């Protein structure tokens, strides 16, 4: 029983990280329909930022975190301006910005790889090892509550929803489409960055950490559905629980347990691509 409780906490913490990445995808998909794979690399950038400000310069955790997140806002905004806006204005198909963002993914990864030594770099915990998981869960809960409230209660949030439902109508109603897009990318980058920062004390900052996170986050998104903010978190939790419970309890050799998230992704894509939660009508 003790195992299960410990595992539940661990899976919840991992699920929160996946959920944050999924939220980052969601923030960008909803108003624009663009799937941005670079979220994994953004998480990585934030992790390296954590190394720079927290390990190297040893700033106070909250201050370091604040600087990194502010930086991520800029990164997201810049990415959108370079890779997305010119294409959207030209009126290209949705595919084009998605592919352009793949280019951004690779470029980001290489820039980090050039700027830092190749070995994994340590990022410190804000509290001790034992409490890191609760910290992750706590921060994620705050973030999700914040975004839920944003979309449900505020005017800005509702304009996001309007754009998501019908771009043209939203534009006709006077909503500034490019501003919404810019904010969604900046926000997405910050959320992904937060996820990277929270998970990096565990896995260290290294330049290959982006792609697995991007895939895990996307799987969480597919499971939870793109329609609602809560879906991202639920998807993340389900994925993490499935992964960890399988490793712990399933009587299959652990080598095959790695296949579980991949299998989940394929099954959900084929059977229920819209995810578990439906968008509000």
């Amino acid at each position: 029983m003790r195992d299960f409780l410990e595992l539940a906490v661990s899976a919840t913490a991992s699920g929160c990280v996946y959920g944050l990445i999924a939220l980052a995808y969601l923030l960008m998909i909803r108003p624009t329909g663009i799937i941005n794979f670079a979220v994994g690399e953004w998480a990585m950038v934030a992790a390296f930022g954590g190394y720079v400000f927290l390990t190297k310069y040893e700033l106070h955790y909250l201050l370091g975190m604040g600087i990194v997140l502010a930086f991520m806002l800029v990164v997201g905004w810049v990415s959108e301006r370079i890779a997305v806006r010119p294409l959207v204005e030209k009126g290209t198909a949705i595919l084009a910005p998605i592919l352009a963002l793949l280019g951004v993914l690779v470029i980001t990864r290489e820039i980090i790889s050039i700027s830092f030594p190749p070995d994994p770099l340590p990022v410190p915990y804000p509290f001790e090892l034992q409490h890191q998981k609760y910290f992750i869960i706590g921060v994620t809960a705050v973030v999700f509550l914040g975004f839920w409230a944003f979309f449900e209660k505020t005017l800005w949030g509702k304009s996001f929803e309007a754009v998501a439902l019908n771009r043209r109508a939203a534009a006709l109603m006077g909503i500034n489409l490019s501003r919404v897009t810019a904010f969604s990318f900046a926000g997405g980058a910050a959320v992904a960055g937060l996820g990277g920062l929270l998970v990096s004390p565990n896995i260290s900052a290294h330049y290959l950490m982006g792609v697995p996170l991007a895939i895990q986050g996307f799987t969480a998104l597919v499971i939870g559905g793109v329609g609602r903010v809560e879906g991202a978190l639920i998807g993340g939790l389900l994925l993490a629980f499935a992964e960890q419970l399988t490793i712990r309890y399933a009587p299959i050799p652990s080598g095959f347990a790695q296949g579980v998230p991949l299998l989940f992704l394929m099954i959900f894509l084929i059977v229920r691509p819209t995810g578990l939660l439906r968008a509000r009508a």
Partner: protein
Amino acid sequence: MRWLAAFVALAAAAFFLGDYHNDVYRKMLLWVMLALGYNFLFGICGQIAFSHFAFYGIGAYSVVILLFQLNVPLPLAILLGVAVCVVVALAVAIPSTRLEGFYLALATLALAQLFVVVLNEGGAVTGGTGGIANYRLPPIFGFQLRGPWYTAVIVFVLLMTLWILIKLDRSWFGRACRAVRDNPEAAAAMGIDVARTKVIAFTVTSALAGVAGMTYAFVDNTVNPPIFGLDNAFLLLFMVIVGGSGRHAGAAIGAVLLFLLPFWLSPLVGHHHVLVFGVLMLAAILLQPKGLIGLWDRYSR
């Protein structure tokens, strides 16, 4: 005719290159083969998939396992290898026809990763993490195909692949594919079976990738899991986009350029040529979506 001349020219080149350059040449030809098939799937039929390298691997491993572990004669091994690719492709394609754009890409991404997991866990059958080595192409009619002669075989397979793709492209099937790519609803309205078109395109190109894989198995005479990993799948996509998707010449140019680029750039930027790829890709999409072949068209006018 032109095909014969092309074959002679490309194959003869192999006899003039040293061992090392021959090796580079062969690998380049294989990449062109993969890019042509991928271009048909992506550029002409509009489907993004990351499983191309998985099928490359399935072809390579199948033929090696069939020939050396099950002792199947070569012609049968080739046919069975193709059959395996077709079966797996159908198994993935048929359920996926309901998926749009990037969702298919994700499913194939998962497939590619699963493939590597299976290879690693495959124990004695796949050689596990070390792969399979220590084999040679069996003599065909008593003639041992080595060196430049084997390169000629690769050229032959490449030209055959190109011929198949061009024929498909110019047929009604090619038109159906383009229609599905540009506007699936309109295509359906015109009476095209969208799902069937997508499945056939995916299966044919994956089978061709498998054939390329079979050819590859005898280039280095080793197959191991790292070769068929995910980074190459991204590279293939970049090649087709930079070269110009939708055009065979574009795919070929993209493959040749991005394959040779690291060799030229090495002295300058060391190993960070991937950065250059990313920049090229971004530049292609932003500035010249028709790719290099689009530039060529413009200037040759």
